[in-house]
């Protein structure tokens, strides 16, 4: 261990806090590591809590795997941070004990080793474990192929194939193999699979089944001819797919822009290749969602956005304010809207100018003020006022504002909401000592965050903050 790491670990031991001990555990070796583990395992409650906590570092989870407590093992099997080696050991243990529940959890864990997953594919007998495995995106093409081959004639194969057909790891060969043995739902999923072989797609293009057609209609791999044919389908789901397909020719868009189904027109309204004639038609659509999607569309020209800014529905006006191309004149207009959600959209808009944000800072609505607090164009004097807001959402906006300076942020180091202090530890605008001074925070999650930050930044941190802890006391700037 480096001097800094050694000092950090000793300080954590001195703190006597199991969460602080967990934060620095990966740095420690030998006797110091044992002392940390004594803290971590001081009570079963703590061990259970750390085993299930999604922030517990992998090295701590590894230490907990040696406790030999089934309740702890159950939490380790569920914890997304548990590493492959630990899961492999837990698998052996679960197999020896015949614990099917733990085997199922390992079968679905994304960190499980391929060898373990293959073993489950080849030897597990319970349906739940096999079904969990078939859904696991970490199961390789080979694992899925082994599973499929083993269960070929089993009645479970129908359900397994449905999952495999939706698993991105499935290979083209495997998908082709199970296609003919599958029902229409599974076949449709195979057709929509990213690895679906071209031959199957070509074959599917001759199908008149709605499930297959709806899937293919959204697929960029189908031919223009088929798209043209699908555009005339009686089924709105198929036409929706065509409306969403980037390959759909302009001539078809011209037809679908007046489609009888609003679902189809909504898809059309979001396209980035609309012609002026299409936009004019969509502008007067009776469906609010169509107009709302058009209002969010970055290709909508100024006159269209102006018209939509006067829409009777606030959701449409809000969409205009959220449009990345919304011009200043409309932002000024919408900043005075009677609906707070519309004004909030202007406040959040990253190209709202300083003057507008100053005006909106006088608003009384919490959503508007949150937007002002979030906006990087807001002047620091305003942010400094918002830091004192009684609304946690507003103060969080300042913390998340990338332009907020250290001076602005400093009062938030004492924010009453613990999550805000956790966020402050990750804030790049603060200095090391600002963060380090939170190490004795009343909330264990804040203390854990500070020590994790220290572990990850152990090289740049000046060791004097740690070793010289007694000298450098809490200093507020």
């Amino acid at each position, binding site marked *: 261990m480096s001097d800094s790491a050694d000092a950090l670990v000793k300080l954590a031991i001195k703190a006597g806090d199991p969460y602080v001990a967990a934060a620095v555990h990966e740095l420690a070796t030998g006797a110091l590591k044992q002392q940390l583990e004594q803290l971590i395992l001081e009570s*079963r*409650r703590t061990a*259970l809590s750390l085993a*299930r906590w999604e922030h517990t570092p992998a090295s701590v989870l590894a230490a907990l795997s040696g406790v030999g407590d089934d*309740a702890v093992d*159950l*939490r380790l099997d569920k914890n997304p941070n548990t590493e492959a080696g630990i899961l492999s050991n837990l698998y052996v243990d679960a197999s020896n004990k015949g614990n099917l529940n733990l085997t199922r959890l390992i079968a679905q864990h994304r960190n499980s080793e391929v060898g373990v997953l293959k073993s489950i594919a080849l030897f597990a007998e319970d349906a739940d474990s096999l*079904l969990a495995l078939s859904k696991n995106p970490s199961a390789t093409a080979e694992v899925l192929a082994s599973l499929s081959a083993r269960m070929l004639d089993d009645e479970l194969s129908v*359900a397994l194939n*449905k999952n495999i*057909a*939706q698993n991105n790891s499935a290979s083209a060969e495997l998908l082709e193999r199970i296609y003919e043995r599958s029902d229409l*739902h*599974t076949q*449709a*999923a195979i057709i929509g699979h990213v690895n679906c072989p071209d031959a199957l797609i070509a074959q599917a293009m001759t199908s008149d089944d709605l*499930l297959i057609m*709806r*899937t293919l209609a959204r697929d960029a791999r189908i031919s223009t001819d088929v798209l043209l044919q699908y555009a005339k389908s009686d089924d709105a789901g198929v036409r929706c797919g065509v409306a969403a397909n980037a390959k759909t020719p302009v001539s078809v868009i011209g037809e679908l822009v007046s489609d009888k189904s609003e679902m189809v027109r909504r898809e059309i309204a979001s396209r980035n290749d609309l012609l002026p004639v299409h936009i004019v038609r969509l502008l007067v659509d009776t469906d609010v969602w169509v107009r709302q999607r058009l209002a969010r569309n970055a290709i909508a020209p100024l006159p269209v956005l102006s018209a939509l800014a006067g829409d009777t529905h606030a959701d449409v006006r809000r969409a205009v304010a959220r449009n990345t191309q919304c011009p200043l004149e409309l932002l000024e207009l919408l900043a005075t809207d009677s609906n707070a959600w519309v004004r909030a959209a202007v406040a959040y808009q990253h190209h709202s100018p300083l003057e507008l944000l100053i005006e909106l800072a006088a608003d009384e609505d919490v959503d508007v003020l949150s937007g002002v607090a979030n906006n990087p164009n807001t002047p620091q004097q305003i942010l400094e006022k918002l830091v004192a807001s009684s609304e*946690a959402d507003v103060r969080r906006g300042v913390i998340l504002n990338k332009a907020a300076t250290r001076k602005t942020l400093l009062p938030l180091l*004492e*924010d*009453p*909401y*613990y999550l805000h202090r956790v966020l402050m530890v990750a804030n790049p605008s603060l200095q090391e000592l600002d963060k380090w001074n939170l190490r004795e*925070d*009343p909330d264990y999650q804040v203390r854990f965050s500070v020590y994790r930050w220290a572990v990850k930044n152990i090289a740049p941190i000046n060791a004097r903050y740690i070793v010289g802890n007694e000298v450098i006391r809490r200093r507020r700037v």
Partner: protein
Amino acid sequence: MKILVAVKQVAALEEDFEIRADGKDVDEDFMLYDLNEWDDYSLEEAMKIKESSDVEVEVVVVSVGPDRVDESLRKCLAKGADRAIRVWDDSAEGSDAIVVGRILTEVIKKEAPDMVFAGVQSSDQAYASTGISIASYLNWPHAAVVADLQYKPGDNKAVVRRELEGGLLQEVEINCPAVLTIQLGINKPRYASLRGIKQAATKPIEEVSLGDLSLTANDVGAANSMSRVRRMYVPEKGRATMIEGTLAEQAAKIIQIINEFKGA
């Protein structure tokens, strides 16, 4: 002027838990303790009265429970309560809500507050009877499920709005002193400030024994309660079925189920 707020440390369960060997409760290792949510609102209501009053108002929080309950009482102190009292004796283990109400009543007699607030119910046991039993023992007027309160220190009457079924509110005038059980949403509970938390850490929590309240082991505990837990268990699962299949297939099945229920 004094407001006494009865609070409880409640247990939340982890997703996976085990029942205790005696079968009467969950193993404590699987419980996560915190201040009862309803009591957070009760305390905030008391703090609002304190902070808006021209006269001095003392807010006293009281709880019945073992050492671990101090953590919840310190949370109340950090939010601004002036004093905290904890009553415990191992013989009180297993006391039902009525017995807890009786213990709290003895504290109230000693403290002589002008108003008593309690949560409508606790989130872990949900008997909803502690506050009401206090009112009964004291022979004080009470109002349950209070969603709004108009009261100024020194008033001999308060006006409360009670939440009823169907979105109805009932406005009630009640003589004071009174016991009110406070409903969620009546206010917006504050977070404790860091300064408040640090100050609370050094404030004493008054520990009161049964003897201090002229009670004995024969007055409390499961044996002296009017109700006792016989067993706690997870019921067998009902008819729930996981909908399997591809996404399109699952959607189709859900539509089919909805149509069947609608009689289509």
